[in-house]
């Protein structure tokens, strides 16, 4: 199989959520001398992007995305140990969490899967994260980006609280804050002084790329 063929098949296997095929193709890629980094980025990661677009158009659903992520991780587990060290370092660190009181975490998890697939290191703070935990994470783990999700009007006002607390802790300039989730809009994001808003997973990935690019951090 040519490199192109292997990558295409890997993409399709991720989209189909076929764990066995993913594992087989990852081994095949290594045997054929495909750069593992290329296999992850242009094979696996692309599959997640395809699926996530299908979710937005109503052609794929949450079970499809989760199962595809499992299949992708199967391939990554095989490919990653063979990656060259400088490529194995990530494109940047993103901390993700859902506002305090909000247990809706499916959207946040999908954003996490896609950012992970796109090569970012993720610090997952989980659902219902207190303001203080967001601030402590920024101070101690120094992520380049902090992503906050909220699905309820009840909890979305935790977002400006986090931004204010970051300012109080003199940490606001050290991190880009991005927000998303059902009731959030670009207007709300601007009003609370966030650095960006993403309407869905692929948008979140583009947004992080853009923000880190601006900082000169990532390619």
């Amino acid at each position, binding site marked *: 199989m040519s490199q192109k063929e292997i990558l295409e098949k890997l993409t399709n296997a991720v989209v189909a*959520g076929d764990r066995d095929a993913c594992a087989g193709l990852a081994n095949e890629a290594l045997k054929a001398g495909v750069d593992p980094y290329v296999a992850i980025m242009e094979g696996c990661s692309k599959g997640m992007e395809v699926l996530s677009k299908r979710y937005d158009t*109503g052609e794929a*659903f*949450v*079970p*499809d995305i*989760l*199962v595809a992520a*499992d299949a992708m991780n199967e391939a990554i587990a095989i490919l990653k140990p063979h990656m060259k060290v400088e490529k194995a370092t990530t494109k940047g660190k993103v901390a993700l969490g859902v*506002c*305090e*009181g*909000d*247990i809706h975490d*499916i959207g946040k*998890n999908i954003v996490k899967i896609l950012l992970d697939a796109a090569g970012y290191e993720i610090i997952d703070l989980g659902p*219902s994260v207190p303001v203080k935990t967001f601030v402590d994470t920024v101070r101690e783990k120094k992520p380049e980006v902090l992503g906050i999700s909220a699905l*309820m*009007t*009840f*909890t979305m006002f*935790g977002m400006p609280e986090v931004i204010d607390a970051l300012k109080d802790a003199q940490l606001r300039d050290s991190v880009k804050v991005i927000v998303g989730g*059902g*009731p959030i809009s670009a207007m709300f994001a601007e009003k609370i002084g966030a650095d960006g808003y993403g309407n869905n997973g692929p948008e979140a990935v583009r947004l992080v790329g853009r923000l880190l690019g601006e900082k000169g951090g990532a390619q």
Partner: protein
Amino acid sequence: MIHFQSAEMTPLQRWRAILSGDPVDRVPVFPFAFGHNAILFGYPNLGDLYSKPELAYKTQIVAREIYGWDQPLFFWSPSWGITEYGGKSLFPYNPKMMSVTMVEPAVKTPEDAERLEVPDPKKDPNMIEAMKWMKKAVENKEMPMFFLSGGWLTNLDKIVEIQTVMRWIKYHPDLIKKLLAKTVEFAVRQTELLISEMGADTWIAMEATPTDSNTLISPQTFEQIVLPSAIAVHQKVLDLGVPMWFSHFCSNQNGNIKAGLIDRIPMGRPGIIHFGPEVDLKVTVERFGKKNIVIGNIDPPSIMLQPYEEVIKLAKADIEKGMYSPRGYIMGVGCELPPRTPTANVYALVKAAREFGRY
């Protein structure tokens, strides 16, 4: 056209008239307010509301009096379908929480799922307490009321972590079906208990189904996995003598509607149908209005965040779409009223019904 100029109907009169297909003076209003009622009483959080049926009872009655809405009483077991099965729950004592949360699932592995036993609701002290207040409601002629039931993926996500549910749909569909059958059996047992304590004509079975929506699952998954148990639970509860179901088919159900899947669920005569704000009320009226009472679905976050005048407009638009639905219409909010909705905006719903919803 009938005019009730001087004699305004009471909320309960309106509710019963709609059920029996009799004329009403104006469009009834169900704001789906629960958490909001505790805020109205000055509680700093919703913890007591969700854990103490007495408070749920009291706040619903007074809130209805204050606002003049028509919503009947809703009841649930504070065990919430979580602790009966052996899971752990957290009541919303944190002021930022909006509902009961499952913090440890009863089922983590496929083996747990196979072993899971259908609980006996008689052994659930929270159910006993809830029934005490339901009986009180019967004494005070507050009927019919609603009791939260169901045999859906939304009930399953109180037993198994939701992302596991989503994965098992793909990896172990038969296991999901088995678990759903257990939730159906539990709903049947609760129904039998309620009937033995207060008859079948004092209450209506209700359900709310976000996890079964097309926001998360495909119409195919709905048809293959959810629909059989949905039909089973509806039919069994109706066969036991409960007159009808009130179904809050939550969030985006457009795929399920288009595929004709909702039509296959027996609702009773009439059923009461309520979709999330993603579904156009016009479609609901056209598709389901002949056999069912339909409830409107104004977007909940807009009611909380928009100014008063805008909420009046949204309510008016809901009335215009639903008011002449053949088997009856109730103006409503598309999911729970956000608890911290400003008082004036809640009142705007009733105000709009009085102004634009007269028959």
